[in-house]
């Protein structure tokens, strides 16, 4: 089972990065940054923001790792990684004009 999971993970990873490469070739428009963010107050209290983000990183890193490792069974771990990668790393589907600003 472990070997099967490993091969599956490997295959999905290769396919993912191949697909990503294709996407990159196609995508020649500038990345739209979140530049229209509206001001609510003055841009104050930066250190408080950084503390919140740092604690958030700490907790979310823990949850991300355990949510992948502690799925229903070990076999699904490979699916998790393999399936999540195209979306997380690639984000290519998010570049579809349907989602575009």
């Amino acid at each position: 089972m472990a070997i099967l999971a490993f091969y599956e993970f490997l295959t999905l990873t290769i396919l993912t990065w191949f697909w990503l490469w294709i996407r990159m070739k196609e995508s020649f428009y500038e990345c739209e940054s979140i530049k229209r963010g509206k001001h609510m107050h003055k841009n104050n209290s930066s250190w408080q923001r950084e503390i919140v983000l740092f604690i958030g990183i700490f907790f979310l890193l823990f949850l991300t790792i355990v949510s992948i490792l502690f799925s229903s069974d070990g076999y699904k771990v490979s699916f998790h990684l393999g399936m999540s990668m195209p979306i997380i790393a690639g984000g290519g589907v998010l570049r579809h004009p349907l989602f575009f600003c």
Partner: protein
Amino acid sequence: MSGMLDRFPKICRLAFLACLFVFSMSFSAWWIENSAYLPQSDAKSIYDIAVRAKNHDLLPIAPTGSYMSLCPYQAGLVLFMESILRFVPNANEVTIQRIYLLFIALLWISILMSVKKLFSSSRICVISCVLFTFCFPVLLYVNNMYGDVPCIALTFFAFWMLTEYLAGNKRWGVFFAWIALAGAVAIRKNSLIFVLACIIVLVISLFGTWERKIMILLAVIITSTVAGAVIPGSIYEHRAKNTMGEGIPAIAYIAMGLQWSEGRDPGGWNGYHSDLYMNCDYDEEMTAQISKESVKESLGYMMEHPEYMAKFFFYKLVTQWTREDFGCIYATLGSHGNRTDKAWEIYQGAIKDDYMFVMSIHQSLVYAGALCFCFGAFIRKRKWTGNGLELWNLVPLITFIGGFLFSLMWEAGARYVLPYFVLLIPYAAAGLVKIGCVVETFGKNAFCHWTKGIKKEGGEAV
């Protein structure tokens, strides 16, 4: 590509959003009708009290011997159910579940509008809606009458309204935020963590500026919270001309949250708090005193056995936060009417694995996406957050942090952490979109560099 973009007008995105909305609503409606779930345990006790209250039987409002004596803080949920039973003719359990559908709609719209206010990016809005539409734990909890769905919806709606007021000075935002916050606090008390997050951020923002707008918001939040916490219980005590007592003290829940009973998850429900309260003859002070000793004993044992402590808290977090379905399948499995075969397949059949798989992937995506956002915003600062990320934009994240810490000490339950998971969805969407941008920009630069090299080589050859 820009030509291609032009061919996808705004109407297409709106149509796509409408499809997602219709899917959320129709799936939830289908689930209510097919799961035929009847309330059990706490939800059943609350529903029964609401039915009796509707019929002017207020005997359960008593300091001893009743569910309300143990949990007087549920008066808000009783009032909510009684209101539905009174205002809707021939209402029953399913009617209340159908009302919950409206809260799914409210939550869907509130997420969309909050994200629009926070990030001003329609792409992040759409991804947030996609993530929420496939957040099956929320959709599958729509038949659970324990108040989770209305509480999450009202919390998000309150956040949207407060943001409207802060960003655009819209006064109606204050009015609706007051009602939504009072409702959320009345229905479920874990919305207090959101209230606390708002108060912390506003107090920090208040220092140095003393803006009138922020003071108004603080007053709105505090008064609505007090109203939501106090009014429902007072109404019932006034109607019954009796009291409900103090109820089980919070420290008893913490004491239970630090116990690991055999055959149960660490910190999970084991009946310790209610048994102790009843054994103490509904004496709140005595219960609190014994609970404090229990907490000291648990912590003392943990200090002497650090390995046990690490194992306890690790598994306590894992059982709550990494359960794909957040307990939605198990919570509504028993006690049912004419449940259809299709619904049974989701509960126990072959489709269950498929749903669990989707929920598992979804959960990983939300955590990973939110992590990407936090990491990117921390490292890249302005580049990731446009003109600067305001502290107010992080209120849902602060609520998540509060919920995470709260889940360490309180009674463990996957359902209890679901609201904090939903609050991560906007950040997850922003993180996924930004990661997509980073990878593509990197790819574009690398490809440009590569093609320049080819051209140069070609030029030299010519």
